[in-house]
């Protein structure tokens, strides 16, 4: 039996996936990137290998992807997260048409062609609006845990709309809304809406083709997923581990490379 690994070194988290030659997921991990991409990549890989009960020698090929992919010397090849996300999502949902990935620093929308290939994609520009970073800043400002955002948003009775798109402006807007005694959960829902609108505007450029998959850290936030689905008027599927889609895709790329 030969094994393959993919490592996705993002700005916030480094994730790894290990598969066997039939493409079955044997182990995975989600770890913090921290200041050293190389160390983080190795730690993520080792954690995934531990779960799989394997060692590095047993890997036939490793592909690195993500923002820090260049800093992974043990990878035999580097491939962008766009291509890896597409392939990863395709392996989980063979009928996938569109992947919406909202990560810490960037968000992207990928439309798939045949066999998990990229037909078109868009990525956000330099601005933090429409990324996980935006929600992180706001959660900190509101003193709410990042993991509680989704729950609070879903339970909110109403919604306070946030007009600013700029993260800095939105921060001061949020402060003043809270000062005016707007319920925090409703403000949170408004913030989610803002992220959704921003990302949805990107989808217009390439068109939405069902089935739609959401991945990335923000996909764990059920509040965002619900609003996105409402906004786009489509059902959205979220993989069990939305953060490892890129790493999984990279592992599948590794298997292809070895052939």
């Amino acid at each position, binding site marked *: 039996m030969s094994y393959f690994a993919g490592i996705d070194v993002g700005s916030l988290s480094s994730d790894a996936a290990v598969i066997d030659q039939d493409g079955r997921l044997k182990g995975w991990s989600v770890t913090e990137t921290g200041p050293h991409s190389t160390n983080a990549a190795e730690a993520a890989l080792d954690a995934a290998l531990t779960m799989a009960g394997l060692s590095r020698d047993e890997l036939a090929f490793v592909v690195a992807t993500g923002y820090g992919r260049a800093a992974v010397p043990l990878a035999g090849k580097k491939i962008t997260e766009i291509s890896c996300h597409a392939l990863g999502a395709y392996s989980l949902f063979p009928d996938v048409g569109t992947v919406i990935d909202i990560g810490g620093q960037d968000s992207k929308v990928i439309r798939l062609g045949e066999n998990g290939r990229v037909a078109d994609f868009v990525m956000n520009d330099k601005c933090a609006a429409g990324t996980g970073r935006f929600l992180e800043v706001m959660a900190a400002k509101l003193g709410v845990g990042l993991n509680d955002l989704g729950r609070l948003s879903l339970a909110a009775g109403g919604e306070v709309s946030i*007009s*600013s*798109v*700029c993260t800095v*402006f939105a921060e*001061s*807007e949020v*402060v*003043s809304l809270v000062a005016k005694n707007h319920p925090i959960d409703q403000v949170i829902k408004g913030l989610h809406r803002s992220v959704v*609108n921003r990302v*949805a*505007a990107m*989808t*217009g*450029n390439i068109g939405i083709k069902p089935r739609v998959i959401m991945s990335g850290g923000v996909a764990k936030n059920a509040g965002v997923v619900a609003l996105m689905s409402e906004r786009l008027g489509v059902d959205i599927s979220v993989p069990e581990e939305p953060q490892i889609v890129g790493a999984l895709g990279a592992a599948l790329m590794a298997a292809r490379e070895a052939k």
Partner: protein
Amino acid sequence: MSLSAKARMQFMKDLGFPAMLSLAKATKGKRKPRKANPDFGPPLKCAARLKEIMTRHYYLSRFAPGARPVAWVTSGAPVELLRAFDFYTIYPENHGALCGAQKMGPELCVAAEEEGYSPDLCSYARVDLGHFFSGKTPAGKLPKPDLLFCSNNICQTVVYWYKVLAHRLNIPLVLFDTPFNYGEITEANIAYMKDQILEMIPVLEKAAGKAFNMERFMRLAELSKSTSQLWGQCLETMQTRPAPMTIFDAFVHLAPVVSLRGLPVAQDYYEILLAELTDRVERGIGAITNEKKRLMWDNIAVWYKVRDFSELFAARGMNFVAATYTNAWAETIKHLDMSHPWESLAKTYSLVILNNNLEHRLGLMEKMVREYAVDGLVVHSARSCKPYSLGQYDLKRLLSHRLGIPAVVIEADITDYRFFSEEQALTRLEAFFEALEAA
């Protein structure tokens, strides 16, 4: 043009619209009147008439296709030429202002952004394209144009914007290219503009399906001139203390001179408005009850904030009595002279504020500060509008330096309030108020 469409349009004009309006009034009447704000004098009676005129204009526009040639026109274009051919004219910028005032800016902008238009583009254009893609508008429905009529005397942006429409609709775009006046206007520029007008006429004849009639053109140009002059006189009433209206009123009452000039209805309207304003001046009625300070506004309105701003300033006894923006439709009409129609039309449209250098603008503003006894200046830096905004930081510095009046810049946008930070603007305004009150 089809006969039945013409008949239908006539019917709607004579019977349909009045019927619709009285219906609307009947339902409106049941609403509770808004509580009067003690900071303001009695509201302008004309406002109801204005609303009726503009509603009618937008309402009837949907019956225009087939009955009359329809043109979409930029706010600075020499519309007198189109009037001579009886075009039904739609002003997307006016429509943009309307959407902005109804707080629909972001929604329509997003509709354009979804088609790939950058959020950094002029939001009048984004609102218009957003409307074009989504069909959404507070005006019911806008008629599709047969022709686009565009002049770059306000910006180059309109050329880029109208090019998109021309491409999507596959209709002719007529451009009136007005070379920017870096210094004084030159003979070569005037000759170039005149030649363009002469070239344009056959194109318009073809689009309208009728021959150009010089006599009719001259008559309508005169009408347009007297309308703009009346508008200028309305603005001049604000030189009195207390001023009988505020610039925030003027932003709204500007609509007919922008989009209906050259039609009798606009002229009639300003006659009524002027009479009302003159009467208020005679009776000493001010737009705000306690006019302590008089201010000038630079740039286009912040449409979604007109009401809030007007209350904010009125509460402090501050009244805006002058604006470069409202002035733009009165300032240059004096050049129009039917003894040499083409050259004078060229000058009228080339000498508008945005087609001229910043020294010209500074001089104009200095003059207005004196004539209107202005105590302070509020500069709206409008993200949408580079030709109006680039240079404002220095304009503000020079003006407040030369005239010794306080001035403030607020960063905002004309319709897209996603780029407006209320907190930041209010902080700057507070500091401005303090400076003004100390002055």
